[in-house]
């Protein structure tokens, strides 16, 4: 979108206002994506904070070739994937079960989560991480399959398969919840 391209142009030329606008425009979407991926608010908050910090630090090298939202969503997904892999290396079963306390210094919670969101997140976190990430990048990040395939470095058919299978599993889980 032209507005994003203009914002990025101004941001790269030192406009604080442009950065504020980008932050306000995409902050909540990125927080939602991060917490959906990680199911842990403190870690999700740190991931989004780190993405914005990196965005600032790399402004001079940044080139927008797609949508800004897609780019930032990919950054969040990459960092979330790294966090998830780090915990897996520590042989933890999953972030939902055993995420260590965040080192965040923020005194208050950044994200305010509704019951509906928590209910959905609890189902999402039961999916394999690749399927969860694919579904969320598509549904929340607004990315196309080929963009997701590029960000995950896998063939597009793999992404489509992950999406379809993940959605079927999620449907089964949520329908099971409803019928209980």
């Amino acid at each position, binding site marked *: *979108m*032209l*507005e994003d*391209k*203009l914002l*990025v*142009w*101004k941001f*790269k*030329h030192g406009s*604080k*206002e*442009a*950065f*504020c*606008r980008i*932050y306000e425009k995409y*902050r*909540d979407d990125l927080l*939602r994506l991060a*917490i959906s991926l990680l199911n842990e608010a403190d870690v999700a908050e740190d991931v989004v*904070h780190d993405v*914005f*910090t990196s965005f*600032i*630090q790399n402004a*001079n*090298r940044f*080139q*927008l*070739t*797609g*949508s800004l939202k*897609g780019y930032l969503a990919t950054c969040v997904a990459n960092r979330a994937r790294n966090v998830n892999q780090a915990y897996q290396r520590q042989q933890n079963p999953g972030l939902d079960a055993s995420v260590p306390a965040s080192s965040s210094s*923020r005194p*208050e*919670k*950044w*994200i*305010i*989560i*509704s019951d*509906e*969101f928590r209910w*959905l997140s609890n189902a999402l976190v039961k999916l394999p991480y690749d399927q969860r990430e694919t*579904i*969320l990048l*598509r*549904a*929340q990040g607004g990315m*196309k399959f*080929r*963009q997701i395939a*590029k960000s995950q470095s896998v063939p597009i058919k793999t992404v489509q398969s992950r999406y*379809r299978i993940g*959605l079927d599993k999620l*449907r089964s889980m*949520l*329908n099971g919840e*409803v019928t209980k």
Partner: protein
Amino acid sequence: MNTPDNIEKLIQNTVIHSNPDVNQAVLKELLQQFDNTREQKQAVMQPNIRRTIMKNRITKLSITAAVIGVVVLGLLEFVGTQSTSGVVWADVAKKVQASRGVIFRSTEHIVPDTYDQKSDFSMQYCTSTQSRLDGYKEGEIIKTIWGDCNTKTVILVDHLPSHKSYVKMTLEKMMPDRLRTADPNRWVQKFLSCQYKKLGQKTIDGVLCEGIETTDPAFYGGGNPPETPVARLWVSVETGYPVQFEGERVYDGQRHTCVQDQFQWDVELDESMFEPNIPADYIDISP
């Protein structure tokens, strides 16, 4: 009963809220980081404005269309006018410089590219001080960019039905000579200032042309030149005007290719086509 479509919509529509106080605190911290980063960069190096312009597609399109420049560098001294070929290359620069107005088509491709709303091609209309770019996709105009060197303003209009918006941008920090970095006049001058080889003759759209090619990184300039740059310029043997420009370069793993053709040189362009005509129902999204 949830269906896959319903599930997708459920995920799309679920919202979270963020704490306004924490939002402000985080933003304040990020802005401090912003200031620190800017200060460090300024201490280390002056920004490479040209590269910034050339790497940003919107700016590049605007600048491409912005001006047909008037600067003739001293580089003509380096070019012999006693060429035995049909094209006197020094004269090409003079003819381009003297052109009252020019119309041309520009087609760009970036691979890999994830931007879906890119124009298939653009038609560009330039005088020495004004410009207009119409971006086409599937036969429809999807964007228009007006540039005015006198007022240093650029207006970008997004015609996509779902957008219908425009932004006004003032290039208050841009020096006029920097606005000329990507126009055809500049390219001709750059070609002649770089190491190049002659390609001989070929016919393009029925016009006998002579070409030159450069792989000199200096053609794209800047402190961070692209990998494997190639640029070719084809000029009509009969008229001495450029007929086709071809550029190719790799930046950050992306291959950029650009072809400019369908040139009409030294045309009188109606003033009215440079007057921004924005439909009343379009939204101003200028920040």
